[in-house]
């Protein structure tokens, strides 16, 4: 898959907000309609969701709920389809830019949900994993859902960098309103066994299938079986000295790695995973 065509992509926060607010309004309708439908049924012995079931009660509220959930699905699909797929990193092995879906227009965009599942452009064969951090810089996003943006400063995971010939690349993307995102992409000549990788940023669950065909998942903060919990190292200089951490210049198009001094060393910021909670009045 190639990066999304520019004409279709969301271009600014107002376009993103148009979708976010439509989604919020439809979801509020759905919530109210489902509550209303359930309240009309009291304590049923059996329930149905269509006319094939004799217990089906087709209330007006349920018709509204069905229409709303269809609308929600359509808005979510449009949002995911129109998400920008910017270059967020650059492979240190083949120099190919890494394009990933990303919502730079605010943490209230659906991309930041834990269960978002956008289609991704085909990466180079060396790409292993994208982690990341967000310096909220005093901004107070008000999403309709919990967001796990990672720590507030760029970091590396020593366990992953200990894998053969693994190199991380840190970059920076501005987020509307003043926050800054720091994608940290990992590349290696040969991808390690997938089960040893980790949940991609900013998801909370890592779903994988091993070469033996075993399908499994684990939480982002759970270690792989038999290993200790991952640590985050914010002290980037030693990794740069070892040649295991490269960077793209802030504000660049990530088409090449920078060779000037690394601007990401010793950045201030929250050094633990942040939690941006759903705005309480999001359905009001």
């Amino acid at each position: 898959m190639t990066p999304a065509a520019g004409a279709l992509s969301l271009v600014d926060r107002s376009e993103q907000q148009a979708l976010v607010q439509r989604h919020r309004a439809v979801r509020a309708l759905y919530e109210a309609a489902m509550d209303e439908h359930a309240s009309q049924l009291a304590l049923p012995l059996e329930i149905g969701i269509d006319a094939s079931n004799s217990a089906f009660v087709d209330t007006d509220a349920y018709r509204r709920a069905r229409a709303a959930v269809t609308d929600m699905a359509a808005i979510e699909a449009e949002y995911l389809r129109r998400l920008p797929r910017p270059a967020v990193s650059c492979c240190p092995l083949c120099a190919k830019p890494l394009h990933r879906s990303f919502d730079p227009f605010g943490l209230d965009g659906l991309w930041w949900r834990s269960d978002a599942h956008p289609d991704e452009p085909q990466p180079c064969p060396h790409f292993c994993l994208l982690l990341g951090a967000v310096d909220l810089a005093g901004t107070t996003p008000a999403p309709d859902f919990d967001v796990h943006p990672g720590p507030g400063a760029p970091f590396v995971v020593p366990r992953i960098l200990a894998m053969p010939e693994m190199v991380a690349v840190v970059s920076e993307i501005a987020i509307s309103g003043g926050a800054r995102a720091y994608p940290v992409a990992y590349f290696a000549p040969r991808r390690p066994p997938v089960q040893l990788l980790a949940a991609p940023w900013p998801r909370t669950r890592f779903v994988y299938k091993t070469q033996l065909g075993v399908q499994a998942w684990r939480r982002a903060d759970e270690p792989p079986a038999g290993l200790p919990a991952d640590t985050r190292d914010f002290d980037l200089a030693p990794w740069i000295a070892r040649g295991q951490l490269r960077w793209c210049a802030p504000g660049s198009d990530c088409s090449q790695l920078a060779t000037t001094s690394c601007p990401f060393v010793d950045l201030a910021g929250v050094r633990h995973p942040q939690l941006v909670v759903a705005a309480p009045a999001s359905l009001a």
Partner: protein
Amino acid sequence: MHRSQYLGAVVRHLRRMALAGAAPDELEAFLRMRAGDDFWTPTRFLGMVFHQRNMFMYQRTTDVAQTNAAWSKLIEERREQWQREPVPELMRLRDYFSFMQFCQQEKVVVVVVGANPAAGSWIGAPGVGCYDGAVPVLSRVAPPNAGLLAADPSDPRLADFLAGFTPPLEYADYVERLAAHGLRVAGPDEGFVVKDSAGRRLHEAYRLLGVYDAKTDEPAYTPADGERLRATLNRHLGRELVLSGPHDAWEHHNDRRVAGPFVGPLVPALQFDADQYIYEFLTTKKLSGLYPYKIRWDELFPDHPVGRRS
């Protein structure tokens, strides 16, 4: 066409009525009001609720007093069993619709672990979040704050819960483990509810036990499609109430050091199929007979052979 469905709220209600001294014909009248033209469902349902299979049907006579006497005896006979039997339920009635819609739309079979219905009223409440993190936490069943997650040292379930870890956890260790994940335990005045790093009180998430393709019986929660399925189910639920993949695909589901008491197969549970049927699984033995599990039980739960062989 009627579907066989197990709706825990009705089961609990009938048992409460019986315990409060309601006569059997009152129980039947309650069911008949809800069964429409379906003559047999009320008596069949009584048999299921009070562990008497078809005995209510066999002992029905045209004499109401005689039937009441016979049925009272039936209800009393198995009181010990039905009183302590767990009742798998969802947190809200509306969630049954959501699971049914999801299963029909995606043509999947979902087995979901029974939840605490007291949590339903907390969903979406200000200052309350949904939790399904790395450290399992019990949901309060008694006031104060019934339905919220808590670590109440006086909760009789907690001792068994902590003993379920390998090695068994002391209460202080458990609180420390929660703290390491950004969770803290409030005081006794709040029922020892657990709060997250944002200070929110928490209710449980739905814990899926398994998600299988309705036609092929293959696992449907795959790397390619799993999170789309989770997002779709959450859309039907109206918010993120499913925060994880199915328990039977969790990397640590057989490891007591991580899973603690949530190790292995979890019951009681409800199965939603793609055609609006809802079945209950109260024992691992019955669960192991569900086809997707029957064909891969030893592979999924090697430490729980008790399931279908006992």
